[in-house]
């Protein structure tokens, strides 16, 4: 059998032996994270690390869900060859739901304030009574109740899994029958799915991350999370396409204009992330109200006024790493189309998104003075193993889904336009 026939776009891609390796990496990562529980008084740190790991991959998968639906709602053509890889990525949602389960079970059956302090009314706040006596909690208690949290989390995953299943089914079935009704069905799914996904990701960001400091509020929070979701998804899909190109599957399919277009989106969402994140900081800085500024103070100085590690994470990783470096880098045309160059930034971006999530989640871990625990500490090991562990499972889900459908949606009405994508 000739090699070209094996790699024809209408064929099913070969399954990758990487799937089992990814699963192994995932299990090792999860076991290593769980190993952190053996250390004394380490449960909080491990739980927060796990939250970083799960939300990181949930964010990327939501980004892929949104990109798929945005593709359909605009009847886009150029992204048709890329869409199939997003659809495979969506296979990870049920796994992510399972991986989120430990947090749900541990807080439901175990210590209620394991991660989210407001879940335990007896939780002692630093310096002022318990959560139950806290007027700022009482006023928010109808929203911040453990039942609401659990119900909402169940709804989020149900919505994501359901939308993914609809999109995948319609797209995969069209490969065999070429019926245009599937394109229409996907457009309908996108039309109601985009608002559903937008609301669910916003509330997920509020419940899972923002409520770690339930005194604090920011109307930008959902948008901040959305920007990270899409950037992460774009970066990971670039890496997947380059991998498929090197493997031979995407030779003759992926052209420089696809990479140029996706690079432009990466640049746009870099600016968007910066716009949103800066606006949040700027409004709080400008208003200078203690009930908002404490969130940034916690990430800048200790109670005694000395700067802590998060200050430098904020300046160097977020301002420079998350915005300035990718922004200046992606301005160049060459950096968007030369494989090795776009690969660099597609690896860089998920790394800084990881640090952004750390910046938002980990300072909720405090010492006895109420100061945020530093980023670089033993706890960071569990954060890394959690991201690798969940990532292994994510990759396993993707690679298991990959051979189940044709390489590209070969009978999509827009596939020819996508293959001939030009400037």
């Amino acid at each position, binding site marked *: 059998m000739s090699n070209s026939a094996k790699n024809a776009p209408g064929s099913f891609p070969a399954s990758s032996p990487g799937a089992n390796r990814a699963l192994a990496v995932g299990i090792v990562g999860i076991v290593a994270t769980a190993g952190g529980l053996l250390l004394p008084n380490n449960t909080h740190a491990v739980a927060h690390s796990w939250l970083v790991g799960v939300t990181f991959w949930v964010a990327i998968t939501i980004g892929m869900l949104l990109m798929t639906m945005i593709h359909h709602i605009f009847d886009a053509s150029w992204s048709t060859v890329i869409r199939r890889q997003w659809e495979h990525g969506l296979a990870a949602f049920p796994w992510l739901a399972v991986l989120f389960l430990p947090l749900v079970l541990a807080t439901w059956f175990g210590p209620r304030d394991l991660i989210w302090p407001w879940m335990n009314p007896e939780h002692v706040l630093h310096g002022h009574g318990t959560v139950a006596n806290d007027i700022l909690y009482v006023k928010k208690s109808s929203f911040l109740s453990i039942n609401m949290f659990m119900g909402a989390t169940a709804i989020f995953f149900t919505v994501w899994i359901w939308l993914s299943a609809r999109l995948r089914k319609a797209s995969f079935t069209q490969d065999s029958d070429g019926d245009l009704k599937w394109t229409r069905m996907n457009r309908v799914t996108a039309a109601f799915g985009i608002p559903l996904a937008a609301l669910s990701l916003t509330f997920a960001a509020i419940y899972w991350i923002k409520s770690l400091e339930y005194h604090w509020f920011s109307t930008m929070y959902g948008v901040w999370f959305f920007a990270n979701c899409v950037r992460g998804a774009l970066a990971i899909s670039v890496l997947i396409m380059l991998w498929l190109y090197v493997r031979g599957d995407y030779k003759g399919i992926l052209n420089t204009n696809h990479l140029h277009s996706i690079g432009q989106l990466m640049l746009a969402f870099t600016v968007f992330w910066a716009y949103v994140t*800066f606006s949040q*900081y*700027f409004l709080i*800085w*400008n208003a*200078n109200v203690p009930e908002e500024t404490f969130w940034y103070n916690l990430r800048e100085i200790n109670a005694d006024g000395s700067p802590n590690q998060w200050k430098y994470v904020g300046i160097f990783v977020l301002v420079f790493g998350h915005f300035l470096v990718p922004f200046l880098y992606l*301005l160049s*045309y060459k950096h968007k189309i030369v494989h090795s160059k776009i690969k660099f930034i597609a690896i860089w971006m998920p790394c800084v998104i990881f640090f952004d999530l750390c910046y938002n989640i980990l300072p909720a871990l405090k010492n006895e003075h109420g100061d945020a625990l530093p980023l670089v500490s033993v706890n960071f090991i569990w954060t890394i193993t959690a991201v690798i562990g969940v990532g292994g499972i994510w990759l396993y889900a993707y690679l298991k889904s990959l051979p189940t459908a044709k390489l590209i949606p070969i009978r999509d009405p827009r596939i020819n336009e996508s293959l001939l994508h*030009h*400037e």
Partner: protein
Amino acid sequence: MAAQPHGLIATFETAPEVYHAAEKVRDAGYKFWDCITPFPIHGLDKAMGVKRSNVPKFSLTGGIIGFCTGMSMIWFMNAFDYPLVVGGKPYFSPMFAFPVSYELTILFCAFATIGGMFFLNRLPMHYHPVLKHDTIHRGMDDQFFIVIETRDPKFDAARTRALLEKAGGKDIKELEA
């Protein structure tokens, strides 16, 4: 001595013809020449060997100037020329200068892009020698042309004409300057 002609113009009937002719002219090493088509032909840039536009360099310069203007303007007004405390904030901080700098980055970038585009393509151009060609109006309708200018170092009346003929050009004429 009679004025040197502007160049040679050749007529083509179809888009593929002009596309392949452009490749031949490109490969022959000409620099000062152009294609006239009634609509954009995808890939013609590449067939002509045209490099990517230099407009982004203007955009970047404009953006940097805009950003610096915003920052220095706010610093000059609030911290230097007329120091004023607003809302208990420092005289100058990049925080509140940022929205202004950001807007000026976009504004100056847009101006530089438009200006740079007009500078590079030399529009508006009220006269061009090809307008004297009898059938040039069909270049806006159903015909395609290639013009090779005499100022091109490779230009040679006989050899350039032969090249255009070989490339499939019809009705090859000399253009008055």
